[in-house]
Each structure stands twice: as C-alpha cells, then as structure tokens.
C-alpha cells in the first residue's frame, strides 16, 4: 500500500475558505481541484476521497467534475505542460506543424512525458488566441506568434 495521500496545510486551508466563498459549497470543487493540481502537478485519484472528506461532498460528484473538464490532468504531466492549439485558425497558420515539431524535438507523442520528465506536449482546442496564431499555452502562460524555432527557444528560456 503506497503512502497515504496528503495535502499541504495551506491547500487544505484554501479548500476550507473556498467552501465559504460561494453560495454553495459545491462551487468550491473546481478551485480545490486546481489547488491540488498546483501542488502535485496533476490530480491523483486519491485526491478525490481526500477532498470529499474535507468538503463533505460525495466522492462521485467530485469525480464527475474532475473528469468533465479538460484542464485537470488525470495523469502526471511534465514540468512544462506545452498545450498547442490545433483548432481552425491555428491550423491554418501552422499550429499542427508547431505541435509536430515540438513532439519531434522533445521526442514525445501527444500527452506523453519526455524522458527527463520536463515536457509534455498536448494538442488542444481553441484557446482564444486566434489572431496571434500559432501559439501555445505553457502551464498557465500564453506564448503567441510562434514558429517552431521560436517556440523551442522560448521553452529553453523557461527551463524546458
């Protein structure tokens, strides 16, 4: 049996404060899952019963929210989650080529973690940056107006 799932005290305090912030405690599920992801890099399945205990919300309801939304990582990702838009305008402006080039450079398939654990490349849907295509979202940050070379350069600067 692996070590039990724990959250930092700050995270648990955050969850408790979110429970009081909205008109219903259920609204705290999304912010709490983000908080777990901030700490662990992803949302491990053990987080669900753990949050359920703190929040007093059935596990199944928390799990439904976890699995409904794209931004929650249900598997571990690399330190830099590189999300490349391949929707309409971005595809028309080299988005797919950008994604392919990044996958090739870091030697990963879509959604996989690179060997050194630093990078995951994912193809995602429209990020609302169509005028500055092609672009990528690295963790929380938008980096726009890219070429494959520029993208790799930026990622290197960030530490990837």
């Amino acid at each position, binding site marked *: 049996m692996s070590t039990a799932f724990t959250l930092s005290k700050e995270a648990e305090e955050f969850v408790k404060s979110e429970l009081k*912030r*909205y*008109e*219903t*405690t*259920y*609204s*705290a*599920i*999304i*912010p709490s*899952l*983000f908080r777990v992801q901030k700490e662990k890099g992803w949302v491990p399945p053990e987080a669900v019963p753990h949050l359920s205990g703190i929040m007093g*919300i059935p596990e199944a*309801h928390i799990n*439904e*929210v976890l699995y*409904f*939304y*794209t*931004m*929650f990582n249900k598997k571990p990702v690399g330190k830099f989650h590189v999300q490349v838009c*391949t*929707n*309409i*305008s971005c*595809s*028309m*402006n080299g988005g797919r080529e950008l994604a392919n080039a990044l996958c090739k450079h870091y030697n990963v398939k879509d959604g996989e973690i690179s060997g050194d654990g630093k990078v995951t490349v994912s193809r995602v*849907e*429209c*990020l*609302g*940056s*169509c*005028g*500055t*295509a092609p672009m990528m*979202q690295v963790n*929380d*940050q*938008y980096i726009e107006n890219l070429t494959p070379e520029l993208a790799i350069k930026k990622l290197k600067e960030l530490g990837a």
Partner: protein
Amino acid sequence: MEIKLLTEHYSKNEFQGLDGYKKNGGYAVLPKALKMEPKAIIEEVKASGLRGRGGAGFPTGMKWSFLPANNEPRYLLCNADEGEPGTFKDRLMMERAPHQLIEGMIISAFAIGSKKSYIYIRGEYDYSKAVVKKAIDEAYKAGFLGKNILGSGFDHDMDIYSGAGAYICGEETGMISSLEGLKGQPKLKPPFPAVQGYLRKPTIVNNVETLAAVKYIIRDGAAAYKKHGTEKSAGTKLFSVSGNVVKPGNFEVPLGISLKDIIFNICGGLKPGRKLKAVIPGGSSAPVLTEAEAMKVTMDYEALAQMGSMLGSGAIIVIDDSNSMVDILQTTMHFYHHESCGQCTPCREGTGWLSKIMHDILDGHAEVKDIDLAIKISQQMMGKTICALSDAAAMPAISFLQKFRSEFEQHLAKTSHKSGDHHHA
C-alpha cells in the same frame, strides 16, 4: 471604418488599472446610473436595440424584462467563457479594460435588482482572471462595490469564477451548472434562467461585450447608440478576425459594415497571390459563406440570417484558396466531438459519428455516399437537443458539405484507398 466606442482607450496600458481608468472617464457613468430608476435603465437598454454580443443576439433589454416581479434574489452572471473558435474579443476587453466591464456590470445589476454577480472566466485565460480579480479588489476599495455604493443604498457584491476547460460552459445554462459546482451540462429549458437560473433563482446571463456596452448606452443615451449600426442591429461590435488575413485581430466597427470592408480595408486583405475561398462569419458554429456570398454580405444579424448563416460571436475566419475545406471541416467536427457534454443522445453520438466520417473522408477511406450520410446525420441532430451544441456541430457540416461538395468529391476521388474496411477510432 473602425469606431472606437468601447475600445476608445484600449491602446493605453494605464486603462487597465483603476486610476488610469478613472483618468479616462471611468466610473463617471455609474453615479449617473445610480440616480436613475432601475426600470428607466432597462427601458433605455431596450430602446438602444442592444443585442447579446456572445452569440445568440437576443435583445438584451427584453431578456432583462423577463425577470419575474418577485423578491427572490437575482443573480447577474457575466459569460466570459469565450470558447467559440475564432473568438478572442472578450479576452481583449478583460485584459485591457476590466473596469469597463465592472462598471457596466454594476449598472446592469442595479437595473435588474441584483445584489450578487459573478464573472465566469474560462480557465485557460489565466492573465484575464488575474487582471479582473485585481480590478474587482480595486473597485471594492474605491467603494464602487460592496454596501451602499456611492451612497445610493444599492449593495452589490462581485466575484470571479474560473472555468476548467469546457466549451459547453459558454452555453448559459451550462455555465450556470458549472457555477453551481456541477458538471457544466446545460439544463432543460423551460424554465429559462430569467425565471429559474443559478440555484433556481432569477438569473441574467450576459456576454462581456454586452455588459460593457450598457455603460455607453447610459452615458450617451439609446438614440446615440442607435446612430451606429442598422435599424435592427444597432450599435458597434467587436469582431475577432483571424485565418488568412494579413492583419488579424479585434476590431470595433458599426454593425452593418460589409464583410468585404472588414477583410480588405481593415484587415489588410489576403497574402499576395492568394484568392478568397470562403469565410466563416460568426465563429465555427456559423454556416460557412462562399467567396461570392462573403463579398455581398453585411455584418449584421438580419443579413447573415438571410444568407443562411449567423453573426454569432462575431468571429470571422477568412479562408483563402491554399486551404482544403475537407481539412477545415474535419478540424471543426473534431472540436465538437471533443466538446459535447454527452447528455443528449443525438449530440453525444452524432458528434462522434460526424467526426469519424470526416476523418474517413480526409484519409480517403470514404465514399461519396458518406457525404450524403453526413448531411442526413447533421439534419437529424438539429432541433432535438437540450442545447444548441448539436446544431452548432450540424450547421457547419451541412454548409461545408453542400456549398463545397465538389471539393469533397474531388478529394475522395483523389485519395480513395478502396480498402473496403471503414474504421477510424
């Protein structure tokens, strides 16, 4: 050609913060509005002809007047989920002018008697979330939010809420479900949100641009607002233009401007050597226009509806002749398949089926009869579901396959593998 009504000060970086906003006319309309009768504000908004700028184009004043005359708490929800492919105007508005949105929201909340509002921002807009939250905190400190705003006796609290990656949360009841802590699945209508919305209370859901526009309608009056645009499509609109234009971006123009003007005069036209092939006028859900149609149409609700398409979110995707319509349709169908919430059977299964057929057509594993099958499937997906995502997937499919049928057939003729086995996971 461009009219900088809402976007007047967007080029100034200071406009983002409270001081810079106030220096440029900010929070000057709020005191005026708080001295009006709430009913008068609703009437002014009605008279202005303002229509929802998020996609549906529903008359805003009329939506507000659907609120029942009871004393249940009302909620104002700002829909900043901006997920319609091609749309990035709300992002601009939140990043450059969060206080403009806040002021518009306080005025709107006062008009409808709402004491609590949320700005539901899509999860990926990290910077917008930070900027808007900071602005809300500044507004509280300055007394524009909280109890007894500017001594008017009106209390109002505002907060942001982050989405977590789901296009369907841009649907008003999907957004309400998400805000309630449930999966962002749309709700059965009736009852409509104005009667029973967030937590079963009367709720008004409006787009970012709509709420920001309210401030200008109250500042200048309905008549001044109506001077822009057409009779049935009054005012200005921010159009997000992308695709194959030389100068993509967000542009505020009067409704009724010709699409030709937008593409060739404002956005610098196409790259050298390219010809216009098609235009998606209102986000990926809007039926595509051929080059001929695009050169004739004006950007207002009526003209586009008459053309068999829609103004939608105002996201214009310009497609030149270097693109394959087959490819673009496949990308679009993949999107709806990914985003369907899964509640209703026709949408859940239909979006998957269409995506697979498009994959097959693109890869050359299909036949001409699959084009007709896809059209039939799309027709059967329309008008049968809880929300319009099913229609939003079906309409582009029908328009692409009908208007560009010869390109699809040629593609099949060129790439057909005749492998016999249809399978695309």
